[in-house]
């Protein structure tokens, strides 16, 4: 078994026991990237030199007997919308093709402080707008389980890299499902933390009230370990929560006995593939057999979630993306006459079609005469969706649903039908709308031999309960073996 096949927690132990060096580990993962990247296309850029430099630094520190973080020397891939000082950060857009941030995102400083080895930047849908990574300006990313299929999105590169062994863990970002949906389609674990628990400073904004950075990995423990690294209050993010954050990985324990799991019937409707429904219900049944209590609950406003999400997210995107004007940084059109023409040509040439659609939808719903009919209405429904979740959490500890209506679709089939593509997020957007933590776990393969995902949603800042429940399910399954079935 090669090193890249192991989990971060296994490798952490091996490094600590000097069974392997950080350099050997880094080289093995870089070799794996060289072997499979032409089939997968998970990376926008790979930082060979700085990765090996960090690995050597960690080995030297260990030899000197310095006290190291458990994840020191573990190779990690970073979604390309997270600012990395001195490393090109493109958002997979022509607009930022040559942008090199002069500062680190807070999560990157935390990852550096832990001594993790940054391998490179992961491909994504342009500005995180998409559910298949097909809107990337850079190149396609393919699903390691079947390279004719999409890896999901927008954190498609982050999910595909974990599934293909091209990274041990990765960071993604989730605005409407962008960590969980690709995690489900690639058969890995992906956590969207509670809004406010991970700093967004340095995350290139899509929809600021919904965006959240989160960890992806092969096991629940890996995701818990990485979440402990990146979470915490940050004075550079006004929405960051001041509180004591637990050490999620050390506190991981099985919690099926007496765990109250809510099953909302609205998430098991006609749009959900039968095979997905069956596998999710089977997972719930197994938790029940281990002592969990199943409660049928109702979240009646779920049917309006996708509409609400696309109004709020696009409205915020139209405002956030106004900064790309060709003046201070990023792409500028070559031929123009006057300032307005420069703005328009720069933005029209720099953004892809999906980004333009979202900016225009956002502009439309915020424009005079339509603001009340769209944006205000959506904000009212957002409040209602949140209060329905609050009531639900009075009678249950976690909520279980499918992550995605079906397994990965073929490359090209949905790209010309935006509305069909948007419905991929139907089970995931509610956690963003209500600011809740949610995790996607592999729950078996369908008849096409593609992974399916179980989503667990927790109460605000109840990551520990959520991760414990996920860990319990993982134990029941005897571990997730996504990697053995990919590529």
């Amino acid at each position: 078994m090669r090193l890249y096949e192991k989990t971060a927690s296994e490798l952490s132990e091996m490094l600590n026991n000097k069974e392997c060096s950080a350099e050997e580990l880094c080289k093995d993962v870089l070799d794996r990237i060289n072997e499979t990247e032409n089939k997968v296309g998970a990376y926008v850029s790979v930082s060979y030199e700085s990765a090996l430099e960090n690995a050597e630094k960690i080995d030297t520190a260990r030899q000197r007997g310095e006290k190291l973080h458990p994840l020191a020397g573990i190779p990690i891939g970073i979604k390309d919308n997270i600012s990395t000082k001195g490393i090109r950060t493109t958002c997979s857009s022509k607009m930022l093709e040559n942008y090199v941030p002069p500062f680190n995102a807070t999560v990157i400083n935390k990852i550096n402080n832990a001594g993790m080895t940054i391998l490179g930047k992961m491909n994504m849908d342009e500005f995180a707008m998409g559910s298949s990574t097909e809107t990337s300006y850079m190149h396609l990313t393919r699903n390691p389980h079947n390279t004719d299929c999409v890896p999901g999105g927008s954190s498609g590169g982050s999910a595909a890299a974990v599934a293909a062994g091209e990274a041990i863990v990765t960071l993604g970002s989730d605005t409407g499902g962008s960590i969980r949906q690709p995690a489900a389609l690639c058969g890995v674990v992906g956590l969207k933390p509670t809004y406010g628990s991970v700093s967004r400073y340095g995350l290139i904004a899509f929809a600021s009230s919904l965006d959240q950075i989160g960890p992806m990995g092969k096991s629940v423990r890996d995701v818990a370990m990485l979440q402990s690294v990146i979470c915490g209050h940050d004075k550079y993010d006004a929405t960051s929560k001041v509180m004591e954050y637990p050490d999620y990985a050390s506190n991981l324990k099985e919690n099926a006995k007496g765990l109250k799991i809510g099953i909302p019937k609205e998430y098991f409707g006609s749009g959900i593939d039968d095979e997905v429904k069956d596998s999710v219900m089977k997972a719930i049944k197994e938790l029940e057999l281990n002592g969990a209590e199943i409660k049928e609950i109702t979240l009646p406003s779920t049917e309006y979630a996708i509409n609400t999400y696309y109004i709020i997210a696009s409205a915020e995107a139209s405002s956030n993306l106004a900064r790309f004007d060709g003046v201070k940084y990023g792409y500028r059109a070559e031929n123009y006459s006057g300032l307005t023409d420069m703005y328009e040509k720069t933005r029209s040439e720099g953004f892809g079609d999906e980004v333009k659609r979202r900016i225009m939808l956002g502009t439309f719903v915020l424009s005079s005469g339509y603001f009340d009919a769209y944006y205000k209405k959506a904000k009212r429904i957002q409040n209602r969706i949140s209060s329905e979740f609050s009531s639900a959490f009075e009678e249950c500890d976690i909520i279980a649903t499918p992550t995605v209506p079906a397994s990965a679709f073929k490359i090209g089939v949905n790209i010309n039908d935006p509305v069909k593509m948007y419905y991929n997020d139907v089970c995931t957007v509610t956690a963003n709308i209500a600011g809740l933590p949610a995790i996607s776990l592999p729950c078996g393969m369908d008849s096409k031999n593609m992974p399916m995902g179980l989503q667990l949603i927790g109460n605000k800042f109840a990551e520990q309960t959520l991760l414990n429940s996920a860990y319990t399910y993982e134990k029941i399954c005897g571990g997730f073996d996504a990697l053995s079935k990919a590529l």
Partner: protein
Amino acid sequence: MPLIKIFFPVRIYLICGRMEIIMNIDIKHIAKLSRLKIEDEKLDKFEKNMKSIVDMVDKLPEINDSLSLLDPTEPMTLRSDIAVTNKFKREDLLKNAPEVQAGCLVVPKTVE
């Protein structure tokens, strides 16, 4: 009966309003507001897509719940209102600029 008299015209107005919204997606106008230009050959496709998207997001019920635009349970911690010394070097920031002259960003002439 009085209830019907009050609600009936309102509902018709809303339905008409909705139809009007769907009929009048003026892509060129929205693009202009967004500081975008859509190529002529792509106008039809964008218009068709926008119509279907607006049609999708349009299906929201009228509810009279109280409205708070921020999350009332998680108030933001705002920084104190004091000037922060710039931690960046001018030349580092200008490295990403499309056009620079004498340490300044170059933009087209805006005043005659």
